C-alpha cells in the first residue's frame, strides 16, 4: 500500500510528509520496492533490465548505460551481464532486483524478505549491501521471518502477528520488555519436562517455553539472580539437568512471548532501519 501497489482502503499515510493516496506519482519517485519474488524481466539480460528501468525513469541514455555498468559491478554481476535472466540463480536474480531498485537511489526502500532462500554467504553480502544503503542515508524498511536478521540490521523492529502490530521498539527495548535475561535448561530426562514446568511456575509465577522432544526449557527472567532460585527449586524437586546457560533473550523468544504461541509460521516481522 505504501509503495502504491495496492490502494489504501482506510486511513491515511504520509511518506516524508507526502500524502500517499493523493500523490502516488511523487511517492513512486521516492520509494524503491524489492519484492519477495524477483521483479525483473525474464526475457531481457541483466544489463537490458537495468537499462530499461533507468530509461523508463527518464535517465538519459549515456547516464543509464553508466549506471547499469556501475550497479552490475557493485552486485558482482558483470560476468552475467549479457545473459538472459532465465539462466540466473535465485541469488543472482535477487541481487539484480535490488540493483534495479537502487537506480534512482530512492531515499526509502522497501525490502520484502530479501534474504529468504539465499545461502549464508549471499545473505551476508545482502546484509552488507543493506548496511551500505543505510550508511548512505537511505531509510530501509525490511520484512523478514529471520529474527536474527532483524536483530543484526534493524534500528527499530515492529513485530507483526496476524496482520497486527503487537510491539515496536529497538531490538534491545523489545528484549528487555520480555525479561532481562533468559535461562536455558536442558533436562537430563525429557520426561521430567512437566515436573520442571510446574517448578518454574511455582518459583516465578510464569510458564517457560518448552521444546518437549529434547527436554529443553526456556525461562524468561526479570533478574539474572532468579536463575539460582529456579535451579535450587529444581534440585529440591529431583529434576536433574544436563546443561544450563543464562543469556540475553534472542528476538525469537521476544516473538514467541509476544505472539503467545509456539510456532508462528504465518507471521512476519517488519523491521525498520533508520539512519
Amino acid at each position: 500500500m505504501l509503495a502504491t501497489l495496492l490502494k489504501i482502503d482506510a486511513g491515511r499515510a504520509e511518506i516524508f510528509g507526502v500524502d500517499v493516496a493523493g500523490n502516488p506519482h511523487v511517492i513512486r519517485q521516492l520509494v524503491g520496492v524489492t519484492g519477495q519474488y524477483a521483479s525483473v524481466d525474464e526475457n531481457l539480460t541483466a544489463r537490458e533490465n537495468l537499462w530499461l528501468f533507468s530509461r523508463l525513469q527518464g535517465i538519459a541514455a549515456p547516464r543509464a548505460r553508466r549506471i547499469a555498468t556501475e550497479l552490475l559491478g557493485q552486485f558482482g554481476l558483470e560476468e552475467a551481464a549479457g545473459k538472459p535472466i532465465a539462466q540466473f540463480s535465485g541469488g543472482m536474480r535477487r541481487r539484480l532486483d535490488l540493483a534495479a531498485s537502487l537506480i534512482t537511489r530512492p531515499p526509502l526502500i522497501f525490502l520484502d524478505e530479501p534474504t529468504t532462500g539465499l545461502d549464508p554467504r549471499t545473505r551476508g553480502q545482502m546484509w552488507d549491501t543493506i548496511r551500505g544503503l543505510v550508511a548512505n542515508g537511505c531509510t530501509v524498511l525490511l520484512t523478514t521471518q529471520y529474527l536474527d536478521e532483524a536483530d543484526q540490521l534493524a534500528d527499530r523492529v515492529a513485530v507483526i502477528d496476524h496482520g497486527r502490530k503487537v510491539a515496536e521498539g529497538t531490538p534491545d527495548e523489545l528484549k528487555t520488555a520480555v525479561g532481562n535475561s533468559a535461562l536455558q535448561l536442558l533436562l537430563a530426562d525429557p520426561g521430567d519436562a512437566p515436573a520442571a514446568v510446574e517448578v518454574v511456575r511455582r518459583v516465578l509465577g510464569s510458564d517457560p517455553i518448552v521444546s518437549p522432544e529434547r527436554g529443553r526449557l526456556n525461562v524468561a527472567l526479570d533478574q539474572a539472580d532468579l536463575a539460582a532460585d529456579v535451579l535450587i527449586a529444581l534440585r529440591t524437586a529431583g529434576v536433574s539437568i544436563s546443561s544450563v546457560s543464562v543469556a540475553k533473550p534472542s528476538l525469537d523468544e521476544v516473538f514467541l512471548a509476544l505472539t503467545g504461541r509456539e510456532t508462528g509460521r504465518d507471521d512476519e516481522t517488519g523491521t525498520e532501519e533508520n539512519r
Partner: protein
Amino acid sequence: MSTMIAPAREAVRAADRVAAARQRVSIGETLGQTLMMAWRALKKMRRNPEQFFDVALQPILFTAMFAFIFGGAIAGDVESYLPQMIPGILAQTVLTTCMATGTQLREDMEKGVFDRFKSLPIARIAPLAGPMVADLLRYTIAATLTFTMGLVLGYRPGGGAGGVLAAILLAIFTGWSLAWVFTWVGTIARSAQAVQGISMMILFPLTFLSNAFVPVETLPDWLAAFVRINPVSHLVTAARDLANSALVSGEVAWTLLACLTVIAIFAPLSVRSYKRHM
C-alpha cells in the same frame, strides 16, 4: 565476486528528493516510456520467435485453404474469388493477430516484472501501449504475407501498389484499434486461457458474420442486417475498393470512425482496470 558495499556517493537526502519530485507524467514522458516498453516487447519477440508463427503461418494457410475450398462454390473458380477473398483474409488475420495482444498482456501481467512497472513513476498506460506499438510489426507481417500469398495464387489487384498499400495500412490501423478491446479483456480476465476463450467468442462472430468470405446478398435478412453494421464488413469493403480499384470509398470513413470509437471506449477502460489490478 566483488564486495557489495553501496558506493560512497553523496548522501541521499529525503527532503531534497521530495522537493525535486515531479507532480505528474508529461505527454512527452508518456511517449518515451511507451517506446521503451515497445523496445522491451520487440526484444521479447526476437528471443521468442514462436510468437511469429501465427502471423506467418495463418495468412499462408488460410489464403490457400479458403481459396480452394470456397473459390469454386462462391465465385465459380479460384481466380475470380481472390479479389473478393484476399481483403477478407486480410481482415481476419489482422483480427486474429490482435487477439494475441490480450493473451500476451495477461501472461505478462502475471510475471513479477509488472509489479516493478507498477512501482515505477511512469505513465500507467505505458505498459499497455508499449506492446501494442511493437505489435504493429506483427500486423505488418500478417498483412504483407496475405497479399503475397494472394499474388502467388494469381491475384492481380486492380488498385495497383498504391491501392494495396492503402488497404494494408487501413487493416493495420483497424487491427491496432481493435486490439484495445482485447487488451481490456486481458486486464479483466483471470488467466491467459480465459482471455483466449473470451477473445475467440468475440472474434468468431465478428469475422464470419461479415462479408469477408461470402456475399451479403446470399444471407437471410436478419443476418444481413448484422453483417452490414459489423465494422469488419466496413473494413473488408473498404479494403476491397482500395486494393481492387484504388477507390477511397465512404467505407474508409466508416472504418476509421469505428476504430476511433473503439479506442475512445476501450483505451480508458483498459487503463482503469489495469490500475485497479494494482
